[in-house]
């Protein structure tokens, strides 16, 4: 694991990132005991979960609980490799998938998980009446989903009415957690996450909102993930999850020994950089890029202005301003660690302030950014760089809710923004879906109003194939078109720094935390 020189100053609260931490021990055979003593772990959460129903999760705290309480049909290992979850085998094409359930798949109360039950869970997840915001990421926007199960063979079949090749990745998301089918008829049980609500390694023993949640390990649970870097050690019998909003308070607990694990986006990680009792593992979860309002009447409607702005900016200077150089420079709408992401820097406009000046001189630009990331220092850099190129730039540093309203919902007056894309799927689809389709006013997500036919074509082709080579080729075309039109100007990543004490180990395949894998190694 790498060490991070200094934290990227990112506001966890505003971005709603769950930050976790833990104390203590247990064995990898499940429901472990250590010398006859009950073993307890403490994993902090930065906020109360908004829902313990995984399908309804919207913030990262929800995702942490979702993974603790429920298994997914499949899981995702490093480099996007799909590995078993509740299903031991699977096959998929762009419009369908078939899963064979593990024979020992059980709910947390010991009842058997049947194929027909899982089909029922998936049908509910995809049903618009369930109001899951994750369903479109899993099955594709507006998809009609047909899920069936054969209890005799243990096979679950999922059919889509239009291609969505991310289906397997989507079903590996925490929001796609499979709740216990029997709990669907017991809304109160489902909401509570108690014994019998989920299919995962833990269930909620007690919940005190605002204070702490206590989870108990499921006796005899044997559905552990088979990640390449699966931690070894003892599985805790009990996991406590106190609610700690402040990263500073989490850091205090880590230093005092009352937490063994926390994740930081802000400067508190610096307290652990030179401390040998802790290890820091940075994950590039937040991807930063300049996005334009391309609607008529805005400077970004002119491709020449967009190109000039791209030339006026320097990714390295941005990275220095926001993360003091600890981020990774991006060459697309995400960084190179995501499957099929462009790494060809020749597709980007080279920094050329002199050339930019010729176009930008006197151009009035309203820059609206969020101060959730490093206090808005990236916005300050972009404003200064564009001013240096002759543009007349006004900057409004808004909190993330205001920024979301003004920019993401496109209800404010804005020309330019620095998008901090919180990509918890590690897929190109997540940021890509912001650059095509209807406007927010028409129910879509295309907040910049991009109309890039080449990009839309590549996106469609990528979604229509599960052949990795063909998929990456399609994504390559899509990104080339987007970058060639300067619809986005890639900048750099901001890391989420998973910080662990020496005696704790926890998996984070592809940089995505798997909290249910917490083990005590010493």
């Amino acid at each position, binding site marked *: 694991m790498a060490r991070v020189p200094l934290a990227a100053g990112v506001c966890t*609260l*505003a971005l*709603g990132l769950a930050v976790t931490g833990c104390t203590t021990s247990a064995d990898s055979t499940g429901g472990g005991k250590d010398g006859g003593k009950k073993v307890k772990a403490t994993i902090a959460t930065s*906020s*109360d979960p*908004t829902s313990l129903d995984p399908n309804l999760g*919207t*913030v990262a705290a929800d995702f942490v609980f979702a993974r603790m309480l429920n298994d997914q049909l499949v899981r995702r290992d490093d480099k996007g490799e799909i590995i078993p979850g509740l299903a031991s085998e699977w096959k998929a094409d762009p419009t369908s998938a078939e899963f064979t359930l593990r024979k020992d798949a059980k709910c947390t109360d010991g009842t058997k998980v049947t194929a027909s039950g899982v089909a029922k869970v998936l049908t509910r997840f995809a049903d618009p009446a369930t*109001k899951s*915001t*994750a369903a*479109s*990421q899993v099955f594709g*926007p507006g998809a009609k989903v047909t899920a069936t199960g054969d209890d005799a063979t243990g096979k679950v079949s999922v059919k889509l009415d239009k291609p969505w090749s991310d289906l397997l990745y989507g079903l590996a998301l925490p929001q796609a957690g499979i709740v216990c089918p029997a709990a669907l008829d017991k809304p109160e049980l489902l909401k509570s996450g108690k014994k019998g609500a989920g299919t995962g390694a833990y269930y909620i023993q007690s919940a*005190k*909102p*605002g*204070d*702490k949640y206590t989870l108990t390990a499921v006796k005899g649970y044997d559905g552990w993930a088979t990640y390449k870097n699966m931690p070894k050690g003892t599985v805790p019998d009990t996991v406590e999850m*106190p*609610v*700690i*909003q*402040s990263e*500073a*308070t989490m850091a*205090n*607990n880590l*230093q*005092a*020994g*009352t937490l063994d694990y926390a994740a930081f986006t802000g400067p508190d990680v610096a307290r652990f950089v030179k401390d040998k009792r802790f290890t820091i593992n940075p994950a590039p979860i937040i991807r930063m890029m300049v996005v334009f309002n391309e609607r008529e009447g805005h400077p970004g409607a002119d491709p020449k202005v967009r190109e000039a702005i791209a030339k006026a900016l320097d990714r390295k200077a941005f990275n220095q301003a926001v993360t003091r150089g600890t981020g990774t420079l991006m060459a697309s709408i995400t960084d190179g660690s995501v499957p099929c992401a462009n790494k060809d820097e020749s597709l980007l406009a080279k920094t050329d302030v002199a050339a930019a000046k010729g176009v930008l001189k006197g151009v009035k630009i309203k820059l609206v950014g969020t101060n959730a990331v490093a206090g808005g220092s990236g916005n300050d850099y972009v404003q200064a760089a564009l001013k240096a190129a002759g543009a007349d730039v006004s900057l409004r540093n*808004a*909190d*993330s*809710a*205001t920024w*979301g*309203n003004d920019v*993401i*919902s496109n*209800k404010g007056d804005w020309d330019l923004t620095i998008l901090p894309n*919180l990509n918890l799927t590690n897929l190109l689809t*997540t940021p890509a879906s912001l650059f095509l389709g209807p*406007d*927010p*006013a*028409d*129910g*879509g*997500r295309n907040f910049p109003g991009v109309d890039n036919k080449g990009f839309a074509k590549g996106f469609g082709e990528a979604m229509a194939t599960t052949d990795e080579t063909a998929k990456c080729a399609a994504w390559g075309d899509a990104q080339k078109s987007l970058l060639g039109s300067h619809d986005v100007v890639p900048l750099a990543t901001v890391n989420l720094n998973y910080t662990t004490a020496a005696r704790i180990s926890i998996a984070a395949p592809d940089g995505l935390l798997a909290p249910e894998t917490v083990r005590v190694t010493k």
Partner: protein
Amino acid sequence: METLIASPKAPEPPEPSKAFTPKTVRSPWPRFLLGRLAGLAGVLVMLIVGTFLIVQLIPGDPAQVMAGPDASQAQVERIRQEQGLDQPLFTQFTDYAGGLLEGDLGTSFSSGLPVSEIIANRLPFTAQIALLAVVIALAVSVPLGMAVAVACRGGRRKALDTAFTSVTAVLGSIPEFVLATLLIMFFAIKLNMFPPSGAATLDSMVLPILALTIAPICTLARVVRRETAAVLSMDYMRTAKGRRLKALRLYARHALPNLMTSTLTLGGLVLTGLLGGAVIVEFVFAWPGLGTGVLDALVKRDYPVIQGVVLLLGVLATLLNLLVDVVLGLLDPRSLHGKAGDA
């Protein structure tokens, strides 16, 4: 509220005449209480309107925050409709005020729990530290202030007086969050004596209460010292001293009652201030009270929770002020005159 120093024995009132008595010696309490209740009602109305309007001034869209970053605009709009956020402001207000009249504080946007349940879960935590803090602040600051005043009376022990004034001035000026951080660094991280956060054990209360009480102790102790010095210079104290009363009896029976008005007045203000200070201290110590609740609600734009908690804190502050004035009225009836209409 006024700071009054009552003499221990007021002059005897004149012998009332038959025609004079019923009209002039009327109890001031009914007028006082009626005035106060009317004032309270006015404050309550202002609080209800204020708490409703204040959340409207917070920029940002609660529906967007609730829906999460991956939601489509259609999903955001659906949430807006469900929560009644698409209704005209006046309709939203009448719904809010109507709910309050029925004792319904609304439902949290983010958790779906009734606001009254959220408050019921969190209030005891805030009450624990706030009440303990005020008791400790009074229990420490009054004897401390009196002791210093007695020790330094008549210009004696100037070094002690200077040290007391300097130390209380410095400690009293440190903001609560800085003090909290310093306490955590020293007692939780360096000495490992107390937990740095949480409310799991009794000892987890120690640092938050220290962070809350140190500044009020300093402020109150300085006031008590000054008031005690003034009382000690009064004729009745010299008379009492001349009767060779024991020190404890002298100060407890003759000086202390005359400090109570100012101390109680300030104590009420301190407790009201603690409600605000607790918000910051709770955040630093991850204390699961109203403070962390309202901060979390602010981030999530959870209007009903913000409104409910702010309304409750406002009502508590108003009631505390009323309680202090009632107690002051009981201790010194002169304070009732001219205060009937103050809220």
